[in-house]
């Protein structure tokens, strides 16, 4: 009767102890930070997006703090798939929650090479906002066919794969293509392209000039996209991501249709934010008479 509501989540190909997943990028490639996140309560960890070759990322400044979010132009620094594979192999010895390995690729061949390196991860996540070589600097969001082919070939080789969508481009069309290719789940959303200019310096702040906007500012956009995905693909698990800073934000995404919640920018506050989110969600469930978090998934569609 008075037992605590269950927070465990069935993400299809992954079972999680609770809905909080660390979003890609915010822990860099550090196993130590993954461990801290796990100890703070995270149920799964998405590793930094890996490309086949190493990338140094953009020059500093790479972040710009806003009152209501964060701009970053990290530029996908990563040590390349081979080195990342070693890190993940080591991580799997130390981390007891699932690891989702984010990667970026332009072609199925490239994707398969990367996937092979990252095989120790529990699932893959294709970052569709990764710089797209064929498209001359555009990102993969502008190439639905490439996304389809990457997913179907990676699936055919036996990997589990999520697709991370951004709010740019025709994400619903892309989601349809990914669905046809057998995608295991969606992560939505990535950052939105944005920019800050310092009015004293009279120059763009970020080294990459354009950066990605995350945090509170994008939360209502994430809610919309998760809602739309859930409406069209009720059977596909969604990792709702974007501007979750309070448990209320998390619950909003769950009601919109997310099975799990990705968090990034909120970690600026510290790892204790994870516990606060979990406590809040649990209390919300209890106060509203739910015994299981899955009862509220997508409830806003009713």
């Amino acid at each position, binding site marked *: 009767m008075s037992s605590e509501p269950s927070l465990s989540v069935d993400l299809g190909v992954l079972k999680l102890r609770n809905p909080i997943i660390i979003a890609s*990028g*915010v*822990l*860099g*490639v*550090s*196993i*130590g*930070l*993954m*461990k*801290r996140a796990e100890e703070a309560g995270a149920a799964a960890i998405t590793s*930094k997006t890996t490309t086949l070759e*190493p*990338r*140094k*990322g953009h*020059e*500093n*400044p*790479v*972040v*710009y*703090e*806003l*009152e209501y979010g*964060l701009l*970053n132009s*990290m530029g996908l*620094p*990563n*040590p*390349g798939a081979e*080195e990342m594979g070693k890190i993940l192999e080591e991580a799997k010895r*130390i981390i007891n929650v699932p690891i989702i390995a984010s990667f970026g690729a332009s072609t199925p061949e490239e994707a398969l090479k990367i996937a092979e390196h990252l095989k120790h991860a529990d699932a893959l996540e294709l970052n569709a906002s990764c710089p797209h070589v064929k498209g001359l600097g555009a990102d993969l969001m502008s190439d639905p066919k490439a996304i389809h082919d990457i997913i179907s070939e990676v699936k055919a080789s036996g990997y589990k794969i999520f697709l991370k969508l951004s709010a740019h481009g025709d994400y619903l069309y892309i989601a349809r293509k990914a669905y046809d290719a057998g995608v295991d789940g969606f992560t939505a959303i990535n950052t939105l392209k944005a920019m*800050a200019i*310092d*009015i*004293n*310096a*009279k*120059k763009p*702040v970020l*080294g990459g000039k354009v950066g990605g906007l995350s945090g509170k500012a994008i939360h209502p956009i994430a809610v919309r996209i998760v809602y739309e995905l859930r409406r069209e693909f009720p059977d596909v698990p969604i990792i709702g991501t974007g501007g979750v800073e309070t448990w209320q934000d998390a619950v909003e995404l769950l009601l919109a249709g997310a099975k799990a919640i990705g968090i*990034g*920018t909120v*970690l*600026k506050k*510290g790892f204790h934010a994870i516990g606060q989110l979990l406590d809040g969600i649990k209390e919300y469930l209890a106060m509203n008479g739910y015994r299981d978090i899955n009862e509220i998934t997508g409830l806003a569609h009713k």
Partner: protein
Amino acid sequence: MISLPYRVATVEEVRNLTRDIKMYTLSINETFNSDPGQYVMVWVPGVGEIPISLSLVDGETFCLVIARKGKVTSYIHENIKEGDKLYLRGPYGNGFKLQGGKALIVGGGYGVAPLLFLARELARRYVRSDVVLGFRSKEHAILISEFEEYADRLVVSTDDGSLGVRGTAVDVARQLVDRNIYATLYTCGKEQMMYKLVELALNRGIKTQASLERLIKCGIGICGSCVLEPLGLRVCRDGPVFDGETLLKTVDFGRFWHDSTGKPIPIEEVK
């Protein structure tokens, strides 16, 4: 944006400390609260952004000691003059925790800069300190007279003996710690030096605090670039000052640095 994270600082004075190290005195339109050991991100628009420790702070005025190292530091040395602006965010990170009991402060190279701020703050709290400053040679020595004001005893060492005693700061520190009078050793400088000092001091039951450098990108703990493994300590946010016991639990301290791709590289290869 209402929040303008960059504060505009005006260069009031530029002093050449050595051929490759300059000291910038800056003023800002607001009181600058900070602890010794904290750093600021210094943005040179169109050029880059780098972390620099605060070397002294007095209300609306503060000093940065900048060694020429690469792109941004060279640009600053060559182009930033009195009256020019630098753009800052911060102060960031956790600085030195001021402890009671006699202090031993050991600095090397431009690493002595934040220690000057520390020495002053200790002195202001009536904590007595001995100071060891190690340099390659006389030409590389900086801030000696400034330290005199706050140090009970000041020992300078140079590798070639051109100033003070010949030898390293570690050599000098080794002799001093044997006197068993220090409660805490504070250090900033080359990491190999700091590693030796931390081992030395902890063996003798002296608490230690060391200020580290790593590749700082975000400065706010969100990108993982500056991490010490396997503890996942972020130099930018959990540090840059750590206690020696914690540092010895890491694999990276004194040994590895992560390059801009995140890959570990031996620390000797860094600078």
